[in-house]
């Protein structure tokens, strides 16, 4: 490995080479202050005994100094000064850090070490097969989603007002807490509320509904686990939802930036729900190009959080009308460039009197739709009794 291959700024690279560091081995012996002063062993000897140069006879007393000779001398002087590294100590530290990384990387071998930190698809496959999904509450919905909401992915859920986006969001925040023994993830939830639609009484109701369902499917759960008695209470479900109320887009950006630290401290969070990602960005922004940039930056951050902390990110989105081929059609808000920034997209819509969900985008599953219902207990399968749509006449 050569200095020339190090990923550092070109000017530093030139300086290092000029100062006599040619290989990583020579750099590994240097400490930051020494590197910053630019005194490699080779340099020091050079200082002591300046080599005789070809240009030297030009300025010997035997020959009168010509303008050309003077210019040559000046060039020589500049070149010699330029040889000194002349960099700050922190920068020298950075260079050494890079060099250490490069050295480590050099030691690795085998086909999977092409990139440090990468995984091959075989390992990822077995990892994926052992992963659990977050139950949505409705079996049909789980089926089209391949078992539920996936961790390590960003899922966008959009639909017209009143279709049940927030209900689904709350349901997920509750269902993520279903204990591991009952087939859940036993995690916690982060709920970022931008619209103020998080009704805590409703959350309590849904938590009760969830608990009664757990007890229905696992009637002996309470007997088996003595600690379960106090765990399966709506209060404890509520206590495990971390709620952030956001009042402007600046706060929204700040909270998403802060999440990195927060999730590092709360490793048991398995889902982050943003209800809705759209609200503030829809009204306060004039500069559309800036909005696109900020939003795509945010989506990359959320992708990173989902991957690093092994959690599901659920973004709720509103709808807007768009003029396509001569007619106005409903599409999700925030525009074309935002539509690329999720892994899965689920669109909720009315079909007659039934609520339907349509899987619009997914890298691994075919597009499909399924009915669901919002009941007193939360999101459930659609049955004939609970699918009434209230119409304002």
């Amino acid at each position, binding site marked *: 490995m050569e200095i020339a291959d190090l990923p550092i700024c070109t000017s530093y690279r030139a300086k290092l080479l000029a100062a006599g560091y040619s290989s990583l081995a020579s750099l590994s012996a240097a400490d930051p202050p020494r590197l910053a002063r630019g005194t490699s062993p080779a340099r020091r000897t050079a200082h002591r005994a300046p080599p005789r140069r070809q240009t030297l006879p030009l300025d010997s007393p035997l020959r009168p100094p010509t303008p050309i000779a003077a210019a040559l001398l000046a060039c020589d002087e500049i070149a010699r000064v330029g040889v000194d590294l002349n960099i700050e100590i922190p920068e020298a530290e950075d260079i050494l850090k890079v060099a250490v990384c490069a050295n480590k990387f050099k030691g690795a071998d085998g086909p999977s070490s092409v990139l440090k930190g990468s995984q091959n698809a075989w390992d990822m496959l077995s990892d994926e097969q052992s992963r659990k999904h977050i139950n949505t509450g409705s079996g049909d919905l789980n089926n089209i989603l391949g078992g539920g909401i996936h961790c390590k992915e960003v899922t966008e859920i959009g639909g017209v007002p009143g279709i049940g986006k927030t209900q689904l969001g709350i349901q997920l925040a509750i269902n993520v807490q279903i204990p591991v023994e009952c087939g859940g993830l036993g995690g916690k939830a982060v709920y970022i509320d931008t619209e103020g639609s998080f009704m805590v009484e409703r959350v309590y109701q849904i938590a009760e509904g969830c608990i009664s369902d757990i007890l229905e499917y696992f009637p002996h759960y309470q007997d088996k686990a003595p600690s379960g008695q106090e765990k399966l209470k709506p209060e404890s479900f509520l206590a495990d939802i971390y709620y952030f109320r956001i009042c402007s887009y600046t706060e929204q950006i700040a909270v998403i930036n802060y999440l990195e630290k927060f999730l590092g401290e709360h490793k048991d969070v398995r889902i982050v729900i943003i209800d809705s990602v759209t609200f503030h960005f829809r009204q306060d922004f004039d500069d559309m190009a800036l909005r696109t940039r900020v939003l795509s930056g945010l989506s990359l951050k959320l992708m990173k959080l989902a991957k690093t902390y092994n959690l599901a990110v659920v973004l709720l989105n509103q709808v807007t009308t768009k003029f396509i081929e001569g007619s106005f059609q409903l599409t999700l808000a925030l525009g*074309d460039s935002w*539509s690329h920034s*999720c892994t899965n997209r689920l669109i909720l819509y009315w079909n007659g009197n039934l609520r339907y969900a349509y899987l619009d985008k997914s890298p691994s599953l075919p597009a499909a739709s399924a009915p669901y219902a919002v009941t007193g207990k939360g999101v459930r399968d659609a049955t004939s009794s609970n699918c009434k749509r209230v119409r304002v006449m």
Partner: protein
Amino acid sequence: MVAGGGRTGAGAGAGAGCFPRRYPLPADEVREKNQDERQGGQFLDGMDLLKDVTENKRFLPTGVQGYPIWIIDALLGGGLRQGQLMEITGQSSSGKTQVCLCSAAHVAARHLGVVVYLDTSNSFSPRRIARMVDVFPISLVNEPKHVRLHRVMSSIICESVFDIFNLFEVLHQLELSLKKKVNNGSSKICLLIIDSISSLLAPIISGKYPQGRSMMLSVAMILKKLADEHNLSVLVTNHMVAGNGAPKPALGESWKTVPHVRLVVSRDRGSNICTATVLKHTLLASDRHCMKFAVPS
């Protein structure tokens, strides 16, 4: 099915015939170009280039089945060319990632080499690839299914990249390990997929500040250098953004010159038939011909 443009299927075949023939069989020993020869100011004449192209620049299969019977590789004049950069652009959920996953699976399954997959939107789905490999005709490679699955999956390497600096770092590492592999001659990387490059570039590109644009061009430069020096085929995906009237590929005019081949895919909502249109191709006649294909199942 060739829908748009004036080309017939036979025309496309003849067009491809003018160019060096394909080497689909992995068994063909591909002579490694000595890198040292090409560096240090050595020039190549046209005959050297032609020889290099016929011997080293293979076409990698995308494996995407056309609808009803055509194969999308024919549309591309053979497939993904080694040493070239290809871009797939399209609306959200139009099948870009599916083409990437399918190409990765096919290249790995035919013993062509290692595939490096850089994923920016957590959409690399090993389960999907496993399902694709599972339905490959067994005659393609003579080995039991589970052995094949393990081999294919092991030669696809995935890395998540979430910002542009991370991308630079990863590409640099890749370059180093490619250089190393040239020396010890183990299994070689032949395909680099970045899905999607525009989501990394979108947060930094703006009209006001030139830095973002210059970073975009240096990514382009690095990708083309990797493709050229290490005989990689590079496949990147790009978004479509709203233009005046019709949607257009993102990243603007200066990116337009970067890819050798640009392919637009689109899909009607609710159907699984995609339409691919060639926007730009360095080898084929430039009329915009298109083809329909089914999302590989």
